[in-house]
Structures are given as C-alpha cells and as structure tokens.
C-alpha cells in the first residue's frame, strides 16, 4: 500500500459573452456639482466584483480618482438594461457599456472646461481629476470646478449613456452549424497542471498543487481576477473529486439535502495554487479585457483525471473521482479488465459506459466508428 504521485495537464478556451451574442448591457452616468460621479447600471454583483471593475473602468475613462465613483445597480427604476451576470459577460459586455457612457461624460466635461478656459476641447486632457491643456499643464481647471460651472453657471447636467450589443449570430446552416457572424465577444484561454497524490489503499485522491495560466486579456484588477481564478480552481476541484448531486447517478436515490451529506471542497482540500496571468488584449473589450469568470472551473477536472492516470495507471472518466471509483478501477486493472478493446487501428475505452452498451440495439442514436 502506497501513496502514488502524478501530474496531468489540460488546456482550454472559453467564450466571453452569451453564445451567439444578442445580449445588451446599458449604463448611464451623471456628475454631481462637486465632480463626483454616479454610475447606474443593471449588472448584479454575484461576488464576481463587477461593481469594482465597472467603477475602475469609469474612473479610468473619465480621468478621475476611483474613489470619486459611486456605483448603483440596486434597482430597475434607476438602472437601464443589463442582460445579466452570467456568460462571463460582466467585465466585457457590461464593462463596455459603462466605458461608452464614461466617454460621453468625458466629452461633456471637456466641452465645459473648454468654455471656462477658452481653449478648444480637443486641446484638453483629463488627468487625476484635473482638466489640463495639452503641452501647457499649468493651464488647468479641476473637474469639481467644471462640474460646479456646469451646474451653477451654464445650467447644464453632465451626463452620458452607453450601450453595448453585439448582434445575434444566427445559425444559417443547421446541418453544419455555420453562423452568419462571430458568435462570441472574445475567447479566453487557460492551461492547468494538476499534481495529485493517490492512496491505493483508501482510493483517496488528494490534489496537492494546481499550476494555472490564464490569458485575461488585461487584468482590470489583478487581485479580483486572481480571486476568480482561485475560487474557480476550488470549484473545479470539487467537480473533479468530491461533488455529485446524484451519488448513484442516474438513480435519484440518496440525494444529499444538506451540507452534511454533500461533499463540497473545504479548507482541508485546498491545494497549493500557482497562478500565472498573461495579457493578450482582446480587440474590442474594455482596455483589452476578456471574461474569465466561468472558465476558471473548467481545466481542473481533466487535469486531475490525467494526473490520477499518471499516478496509478487508470483512466477514470466518470466524475467525481471518488475513492470508490479509484478502488474499483485499481481492482479492474489488477484483474486485467480495464484494458481497452483493440481492433485494427481502433482503440475503444470505456465500452461498458457507452450508449451502445446500455441502449437497445434498435435505438436511433449511436456513435458509429467504422473500424
């Protein structure tokens, strides 16, 4: 009886935004008389940090400190449409909506500053909350003074709206799956190496380290994107070795109806997490960002399954990789039952799990591989 170490890798890609697009997000922004900025957007923050990310985008785009921005996504009376927080779309799609709204606000600030300074707005820039003349930084007016001038002097409200929508990509050939437009906003990429220890006596798989690299396009907030990646990794670990709603799937018996009977990852399951970010900017996302919220839990299960094979020489392709499945696979391997079927150049694994093995021979659906 021994602990066996193994390593496996996976590389994945994932789309940003709803598949086939057609999912709008909108925002509007107003500026208070002291230059403070109020953002109204309908994007729910489900813990992904979208309030923070969108506030950063607005601050950067207008040219004011992050602390000047308040963000209100609290209700549908004051906030415009956001299709929702899913499909890895909150940073990219909803982020573009607030960015476009902020660009309008910036234009309005420059217009009014131009009147105050008697300089053409195109010769002005906004830096750290101050409107400065390009090439003559001593000529300037603060954004609070511009906002005050707009309110009390010019009788104007500084505001801006923005909307992001990529048109729906229709499937024009249902026989081939061809689409008439690109069906995503961007594609993100990641790789993962999982290191495991497999106990051949208990069957337990312990994930000891996950080395991961994500192409995030551009990290609007590195701390938050690292948090998404770490959290996703643990959710992927749960999918890989712990969790199932139906312990005897496909039976519905013995579903866990409480935390005590459903194994979710906890601190004791935490592996070492090594994360590498790379930034290959998206062509049309906010500051080059891509959405990686969902894919963060995708590469671990296959990397873990490959690592288990590396450790003890068995392929377990039903998740989760429980101690019972490991022990059964080791027993099958010991008795020579786990070998794939080889016929000519065709190698067939997992025959007992297949549709062909379970469905009636006259069922209309089967995977046919002509040997």
């Amino acid at each position, binding site marked *: 009886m021994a602990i066996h170490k193994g390593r496996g890798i996976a590389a994945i890609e994932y789309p940003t935004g709803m598949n086939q697009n057609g999912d709008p997000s909108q925002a509007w922004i107003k500026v208070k008389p002291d230059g403070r900025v109020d953002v109204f957007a309908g994007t729910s923050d489900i813990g992904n940090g979208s309030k923070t990310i969108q506030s*950063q985008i607005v601050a*950067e785009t207008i040219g004011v400190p992050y602390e000047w921005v308040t963000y209100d996504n609290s209700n549908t009376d004051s906030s415009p449409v956001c299709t929702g927080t899913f499909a890895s779309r909150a940073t990219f799609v909803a982020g573009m909506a607030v960015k476009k709204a902020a660009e309008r606000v910036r234009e309005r600030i420059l217009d009014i500053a131009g009147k105050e300074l008697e300089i053409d707005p195109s010769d002005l820039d906004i830096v750290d909350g101050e409107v400065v003349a390009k090439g003559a930084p001593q000529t300037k007016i603060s954004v609070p003074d511009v906002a005050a001038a707009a309110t009390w002097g010019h009788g104007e409200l500084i505001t801006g709206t923005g909307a992001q929508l990529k048109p729906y990509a229709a499937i024009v050939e249902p026989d081939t799956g061809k689409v008439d437009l690109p069906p995503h906003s961007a594609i993100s990429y990641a790789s993962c190496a999982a290191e495991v220890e497999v106990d051949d006596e208990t069957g337990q798989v312990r994930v000891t380290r996950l080395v991961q690299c994500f192409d995030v396009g551009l990290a609007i907030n590195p*701390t938050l994107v690292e948090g998404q990646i770490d959290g996703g990794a643990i959710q992927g670990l749960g999918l890989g070795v712990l969790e199932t709603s139906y312990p005897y799937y496909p039976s519905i018996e013995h579903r866990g109806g409480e935390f005590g009977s459903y194994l979710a990852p906890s601190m004791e399951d935490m592996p070492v997490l090594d994360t590498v970010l790379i930034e290959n900017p998206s062509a049309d996302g906010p500051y080059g960002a891509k959405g990686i919220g969902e894919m963060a839990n995708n590469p671990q299960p296959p990397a873990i399954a490959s690592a288990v094979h590396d450790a003890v020489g068995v392929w377990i392709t039903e998740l989760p990789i429980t101690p019972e499945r490991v022990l059964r696979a080791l027993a099958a391997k010991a008795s020579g039952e786990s070998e794939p079927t080889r016929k000519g150049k065709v*190698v067939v694994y997992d025959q007992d799990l297949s549709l062909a093995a379970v469905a009636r021979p006259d069922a209309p659906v089967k995977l046919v591989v002509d040997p």
Partner: protein
Amino acid sequence: MKAVGARVPRYDGVAHVTGRTVFVEDFDVPGAAWVKALRSPHPHAGIAKLDASAAERMKGVRAVVTAADVPLNVYGHLSALGIPGDEPLLAEKEVRYVGQPIAVVAAEDEEIALAAVDAIEIEYDVREPLFDVRKAFDPDAPQIHEWGNWYPHFEDGYDHRQIRKGDIDAAFDQADLIVQGVYRPAAIEQLPIETQVCQVVPEANGRLTIYSCTQALYFSMGVVAAHLQQPLNKFKFVGGTVGGGFGGKVDTATETLCCLLALKSCKPTKWRWTREEEFLCSSTRAPWHMEVADAVTKDGWILGRRMITLHDSGAYARFSPYGVTKHSFHHTGAYTIPNLHFDGWVVFTNRTPTSAMRGFGVTSVSFATETHMSRIAEELGIDPFELRLKNANRIGDTSPNGVVYTDPSTVPTILAIADHLGHELPADYRTMTTEPRSGDLLPDHLVAQLGNPEDH
C-alpha cells in the same frame, strides 16, 4: 493614479466581511407573509385531483395560488432565441420531477403555511420514470415529456444540434489510430451561501416592489412580467447584491409566485427556500454523457473528431438547448481539428431540471476532450504538452463553425505552465507562437481550413 490595472479594494468588500451588507434575507418587510410550496413527491405522475379549498379556509392563510391563478403558466424563457416554453410555473396535469411546485401558500407564519400545504388535497396517478439518458431513445422507454424524450426544436426542425466540417470519413480512413472514449461528469450544486429568496411588496400606487437575489434583474423582470402579462413598469426589481449565484440564480425561482401571492392577498410576501429545497429543488449543473472518437496520426496530428453528446436536461428544457449549442461550438477545445462530425441531444429525464452553472455547456466538453487528449498522448507515446502545442489553434485557424481565430492564446498559456513546472520541451516547441501556421505546422490536412483574420 491609473484606475485600470490597480489592485483597488473590492467596492463592497469591507461591508461583506463585516456583515453589514444587506442581502434579501437580512430584513423583513413589515407584515410579510411566509410562503411555502406544495411539491411533488414523485418523479413522474399525473395529477388526478387538486383541491386547495380547505387550505384557503384555514385561519391565518392569506392566499393559495395554483396553476389556475397564473395568467400565463407556461412561458419560454429563451423564446427570443427561438426556444419555446415547456415548463409550467405550477404543475397542472402532471409532475415530472421530485420537488416540482404544484401550489404555493402565503400565511401569517411558517407553521400555518406548512399546515396549509398539508391541507391541500391532491391525488397522483404515478407513472414510470426515466432517469438514464442512454435509455431515452429506446422504443419502449417511458414517454415523459410532451415533446418526446428529447428536445425537437432546433433550427429547421432539427431534433439535435449538429456540426459538420470537412471530410470526416477521409480523416478516419487516413488515421493511423482511432481513439474512442466515454466521459460522464456529474450533476453538482451551484451551492450559494444565500438560498433562493425574495420579498414582494404590493405598493399603494399599484406597482410591485420585488427584492430579489437574481443574477439578472432585467431578465427576471421580463420573466415575471410575461407570466403576469403586465408591462415592465408594473414592477420594480431591487437587488444587484447577490449572495452567490454561479448560474443558479438566473432561474427566477421565487419571484413570480411571490408576486402572484402578494397580488391575491394584497399583502407583502417573503419566500426563502430552506437549505434542503436549495439542494433538492433548485436546478443543478447538468450531468452529461459524451462519446469521443478521434482520428489521429502516429506523429500526433488530430485529423478528425466524431462526437456524440447526450445532455441530461432533467424534466424541462430551461436553458439546455442554449447550453448544448454552446457546447457544440467549443467541442474542439483549444485545438484545430479540420474534420468534424458532432451530434448533441437535449434529453429529458425525471430529475430536477438542470440549468446554467459556471462554464455552462463547456465545462463538460473541456473535461471530455482534454482527458481524451491525455489518452491520445499516452496511446501515441507523445509528451502531452507537445501533443497539445502541435494541435493548438493559431491565428487564422477556424473554429468548428468556421469562425476565424484572431487572437488565440493556447500556445503561450501551455508554454507558461511548462516553464513554471520546469518541463523541458524541444526547441521548436519552446519557441512556438500564436502566429499563423507555416512550415511543419501546416501539413496538407490543415491547408483547406485556414481563414483570413482580416475578414473578422
């Protein structure tokens, strides 16, 4: 200071960790009624009799709502994408999963609400259930859905999602080896800390204020407005700060029924699912059944892939057709495979409907195809990094449905972990880039699939 790229603290992080963030469960609208549901104990049954009159007459009961009270009981949440509706808000003639709501009660306290649920008279005509997607197509399988055992409404009347690319038969003829495997990731829970919850206040001006934990305020408002057949300005959704969702809170699980009870009783309502309901009655990530056969050459090129997917949708379609379509668009993963033959079905079973969860449609295919890649590397005796780098998609390559990749990062992400692990690679792999294919990386079988990135 630059705001973008800065590690600024989370906007509401301090409030979250000091317990001062107010989530929907953290307050009670004054006078709100408790809501409880009558749920099916059977995975598949007809409803022979339903009589809520005794429950309605109970002291402390403010309202009981059944299917008869819902202006539009069946509404297709993705009808805008051409996906019609199949799921009733409240079961009418039959139930198709354990936990399916049949009636909801609003009462002065939790005990009365539970007693009222017990007082609803109901008789079932129990039917044979179907649980195994692999048996759904059998001629003698129990028929469990009005549309049959699988979703029939893809474009042009297709009953499955189909991808065809290149010449699949030629690829399999040319292959040195064909590797076939079966992959079955499990259903899991989204497992948010905050269970499904909402509160609804009928306002003096005739509007409804809905305190909601939805991940999608406008989407959920649209769902409620459609079921109630009211314009959007009848409603004010309040939310935007959610105690975890992971996809499970797109379903709009509580809001519509709480609105109906609030309207019928003219009093506020509050419905917080118990942890047991969250586990057993809310949607899960789908279980998937995937079979992959890859045609490969002995030096590690993947010439073609045949794949079949059975998506276990549970009792109703919800977002599953969307998930299978997304799955099909990504079934080559981060690689370029020029010859494809994919068929994916949305299969109905008598389990809790599955729905969106983080990675929807793709988590499954990443598991299947990446484990399969490792198997191919093992079969061929090729380093798994090298197999992946060789087939990695590059600028100018095309996706399963012909879209040109303009900025793929498969190569740099793989090289980054190899570097971090100190995994040695031959020089021609170590120096690979995302640039368009040429030389040894553009063998004959890939020439025809290249597209022009300038066109996209």
